[in-house]
Every structure is written in structure tokens, then in C-alpha cells.
């Protein structure tokens, strides 16, 4: 039988160490909504989302009550909109109409975000893909809850450099159209290499075409819990350190598994995956950077950071995999800058640079995330940074992502405030040397040799 110490431990994790379930994300296929008439398409989309997801938020709240565990976000991911809208949309403005429909449906069912305003263009772009990508600035500046993502490459296909170049411009334009809000639109836009079909986390969630009609995916979190556990093993060997992280990750993941199963049962929707991620929030004590410090670094970014992060990421997976049979999504430690107070401190102390962050992304999920850069950064420079990050993902057969925010009107040393879970961020310097001639080449980077496994 459960004993009092176990009960006290669990409740301390929830109350003092920010243990929570970060998100229940319902994936909804919109393939059956397709129509060549735009109004009919939007009508179908609105009806399907508001029918299938009508109980999502309420169910989440009921589970919160049952176990007294916070479920921070309830979200929806949909089939990439470029696939759904291809037949009906002839202009970027047509696609933006779909975004507005998604926003309206998301407000109606009360979710925090809806993801999947996306295009998958790892090898080439269809006309619809390109129209959707060109509509992103308009879509994100005229909606509130819609998140957008674009998959630009994969280990199997190589990198679509034409799309990489285009995304540099789209990110700049999105920043420009949302400059009144510190270019907030870019916080809802992410580009990927090797994007997973079942990621529950925003801004990159979409419901892949390989998925069932509807599915429940859950993202767990808990950097604060890992940090607190590690406080008790200061000075101990790596073996003890790893064992502690593993055990903690196991416990955290089991809570996610329980919530996922329960939500799946209550909603009558199949359970998909648990995403084992350490997702920080700006709240004090809910930081991945603080874990790195607890492992033994003065600040995130100090020598040893990549090794410490590699260790952390691997142990989280080892503990989590034992706790759930279906693990997927991004699964790893997130290292966003603006959403992690420890990361912000490290940048402000001069310990953490964009280049070091790039190195860190080689060993963890996901990538250069929530990084504010000067608003006058050239589009080609942004594309160059994206290409670097995508190359890491392509060669290492892992997911990588870029979510940069060129803050219009602000420069290095200034701070941007996004509010809520998105936090605040110091504007970081970007390498000033040009990559114009590289980015302006046409075509794609071929798939790497180790992708030919057949």
C-alpha cells in the first residue's frame, strides 16, 4: 500500500517543484474536411474541430481535480494546413482565411493554442506549400492562437534550400507585421528538420498524415523536480548523478502516462504518445539551465555545458522509456532562452552565446529556440542560421528546430517582454559576416550518405 512518505514526496513535487503535465494535445485529422470551395472548407474545419474537441478542456480540468496535478495547456494539432487547403486556396490570403477559422475554433473550444498551420517541404514545395508559407506573416499577425511550422529538411531527403531562403524572408516579414508586440508573431513560428508527426509541444505541433483520425498526445515536464533531486546528490559520482536523473524522469513520466491514459479513456480518443521533455517555464525553479548549474556549471554556456546536457538528455530518456511504452514527439531537454530564467541569466552574464546554443542543440531536443536577435538582422543571415541548424539535424538523424525572433526596432542589449509562458529575453548578438552568396544558390542540399540504408 502507498505510504505517507511517497504521498508527501509526490505532493511536494507538485506544490514546491513545479511538477506539472505541460500539455494534453489532441491531434485532429482535417483530411476529411477538404473541399475545393474555400467557404465550405472553412465551415467543415470549424465544425470538425468544435465537435471533436468540445470536451477537451473540460476533461483536462476534471483530471486536474482528480489527481490534484496541474495540466498547464490543452491544445489542438491539425493536419498540415497546406495539405488541407491545397484544393481551395489560390492565394496567400485564401490560406489566411483558414488560419482565421482555426483561431475561431480554438477560441470556441477554449484551448491555449492550435498548431498545424504548416507545410512539409523537406524536398520540394508544391504550389499550395509555397502559398501557405507566403501567407504565414499575414496569418500570424491576424490570429491569436494559431501556431505555424515548416519542415525544411530531413535525413532522408536533404535540405530544401529554396525553402530555407524563403523562410528567412517570411520570419522577417512576420516580425515586421507584429512589431507593435515586440515581433511576437515569430514566437508562434518554427522551422524544423526531421519534424515528428506526433509532437504535442507548440509552436511545432501538427497532426501528421500517418496518424489516426484523432489522437491524444501528452507532453510532460518537470525541470524543477530534477533540479531538487540533484540538490541532494551534490559532489557524488556520475553514476549517482545519472541514477538520480533516471529515477526522477521515471516518476515524472508515469504521471504523464496516467494523465494520457485517463484523457484517452474519458474522451474516447486513442492514446498516441508521451513526449518526455524537460520543458522549462519562466517561473523561478522551473529551469533546465538551473539543472546544468546543479550538475556543476557556474552558468549554462560554461565549458562542459554540452557534455552535461548530453548526459541529462540521455538519462531523461532512459528513465522515461521505462515509464511509458509509447514515447514519441521531441522527447528531450528543451533549451529555449526566453522561457528559462537560468538561460536568460546566463545570456545576461555573458556566459551563453548563439554559437554555444547551436553546439548544445547537437545533443538535445530541439534547437535554437525563443532567441531574440536584432531586428536589423538580414533575411539571408537568418536563413544561414537555419541552414546550420537543419544540417545538424540532417547529419545526426535527429529533430532540430529554429525559432528566432528578430525584434524590429531593438538591438543587442535591449530586452523584449513576451509575457506568460513565453517569458522575456535579452536581444543576442548575431555573427555579422555575410552568407548571401551561399543562401542565394538555388535548389537543395542532397541527403547525406548515411541515409541510404536500404
Amino acid at each position, binding site marked *: *500500500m*502507498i*505510504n*505517507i*512518505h*511517497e*504521498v*508527501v*514526496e*509526490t*505532493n511536494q513535487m507538485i506544490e514546491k517543484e513545479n511538477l506539472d503535465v505541460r500539455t494534453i494535445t489532441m491531434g485532429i485529422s482535417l483530411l476529411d474536411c477538404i473541399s475545393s470551395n474555400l467557404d465550405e472548407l472553412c465551415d467543415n474545419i470549424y465544425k470538425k474541430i468544435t465537435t471533436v474537441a468540445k470536451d477537451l478542456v473540460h476533461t483536462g480540468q*476534471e483530471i486536474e*481535480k*482528480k*489527481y*490534484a*496535478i496541474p495540466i498547464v495547456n490543452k491544445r489542438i494539432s491539425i493536419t498540415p494546413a497546406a495539405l488541407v487547403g491545397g484544393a481551395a486556396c489560390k492565394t496567400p490570403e485564401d490560406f489566411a482565411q483558414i488560419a482565421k477559422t482555426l483561431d475561431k475554433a480554438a477560441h470556441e473550444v477554449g484551448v491555449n493554442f492550435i498548431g498545424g498551420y504548416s507545410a512539409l517541404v523537406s524536398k520540394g514545395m508544391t504550389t499550395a506549400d509555397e502559398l501557405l508559407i507566403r501567407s504565414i506573416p499575414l496569418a500570424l499577425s491576424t490570429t491569436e492562437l494559431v501556431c505555424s511550422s515548416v519542415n525544411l529538411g530531413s535525413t532522408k531527403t536533404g535540405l530544401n534550400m529554396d525553402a530555407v531562403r524563403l523562410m528567412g524572408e517570411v520570419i522577417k516579414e512576420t516580425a515586421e507585421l507584429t512589431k507593435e508586440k515586440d515581433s511576437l508573431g515569430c514566437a508562434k513560428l518554427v522551422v524544423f528538420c526531421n519534424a515528428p508527426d506526433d509532437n504535442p509541444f507548440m509552436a511545432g505541433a501538427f497532426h501528421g498524415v500517418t496518424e489516426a483520425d484523432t489522437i491524444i498526445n501528452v507532453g510532460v515536464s518537470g525541470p524543477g523536480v530534477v533540479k531538487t533531486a540533484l540538490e541532494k546528490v551534490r559532489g557524488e559520482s556520475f553514476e549517482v548523478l545519472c541514477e538520480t536523473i533516471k529515477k526522477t524522469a521515471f*516518476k515524472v513520466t*508515469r*504521471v504523464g*502516462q*496516467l494523465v494520457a491514459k485517463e484523457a484517452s479513456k474519458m474522451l474516447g480518443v486513442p492514446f498516441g504518445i508521451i513526449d518526455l521533455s524537460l520543458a522549462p517555464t519562466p517561473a523561478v525553479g522551473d529551469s533546465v539551465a538551473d539543472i546544468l548549474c546543479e550538475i556543476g556549471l557556474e552558468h549554462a554556456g560554461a565549458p562542459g555545458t554540452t557534455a552535461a546536457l548530453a548526459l541529462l538528455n540521455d538519462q531523461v530518456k532512459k528513465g522515461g522509456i*521505462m515509464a511509458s511504452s509509447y514515447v514519441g514527439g521531441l522527447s528531450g531537454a528543451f533549451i529555449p532562452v526566453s522561457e528559462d530564467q537560468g538561460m536568460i541569466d546566463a545570456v545576461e552574464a555573458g556566459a551563453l552565446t548563439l554559437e554555444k546554443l547551436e553546439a548544445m542543440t547537437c545533443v538535445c531536443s530541439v534547437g535554437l529556440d525563443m532567441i531574440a536577435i536584432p531586428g536589423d538582422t538580414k533575411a539571408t543571415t537568418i536563413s544561414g542560421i537555419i541552414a546550420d541548424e537543419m544540417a545538424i539535424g540532417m547529419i545526426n538523424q535527429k529533430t532540430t528546430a529554429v525559432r528566432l525572433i528578430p525584434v524590429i526596432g531593438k538591438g543587442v542589449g535591449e530586452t523584449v517582454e513576451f509575457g506568460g509562458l513565453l517569458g522575456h529575453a535579452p536581444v543576442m548578438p548575431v555573427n555579422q559576416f555575410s552568407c548571401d552568396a551561399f543562401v542565394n544558390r538555388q535548389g537543395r542540399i542532397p541527403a547525406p550518405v548515411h541515409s541510404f540504408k536500404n
Partner: protein
Amino acid sequence: MKKTIITVVGKDTVGIIAKVCTYLADNHINILDISQTIVDEFFNMMMIVDMHNADKAFDTVADELEKIGSEIGVIVKCQREEIFASMHRI
């Protein structure tokens, strides 16, 4: 059996257990086990109860117990057992 864990955390005062137990008895909730300990100078009590024959819904019981707790200056929480079992048992 619908096992639920009730925890009471706060400063030790006279009658905490009595108040909670009276409420449980009135609502046909059977107590299976009680234990208590002191953590960081706070009184911690845990009860394992069976709500199978309870008169009221889980939500209502949780809310009402929370209210009783706040009247006597302690925090009373009601949670289904599965969260602890899944976390601490393989």
C-alpha cells in the same frame, strides 16, 4: 474499491482528525488506513479511504474537505490513489 488518498498538512491543532473523520462517516466513506508524520515542522496526515459507497461525487467531496480544512487552518487535499501508485510502483 475506489481508493482515494486524503492528505492534511498544516499546524497541529486539536480536533483535525475528528473533523475530517466525522465528515467521512457522514458521507459513507470508509477509512482503510491512517498514518501521520512531521515534515519541516508541519503536521502531515494521510488517510487511505474507499469512496465506493460515498453519497457524493468525488469533486464535491474534494471541495467540501478543502473547505473544512480552511476552517481549521490546514490544507486538505483529495487525490485518486493512481497518481501515487503509478509514480512509486513499477
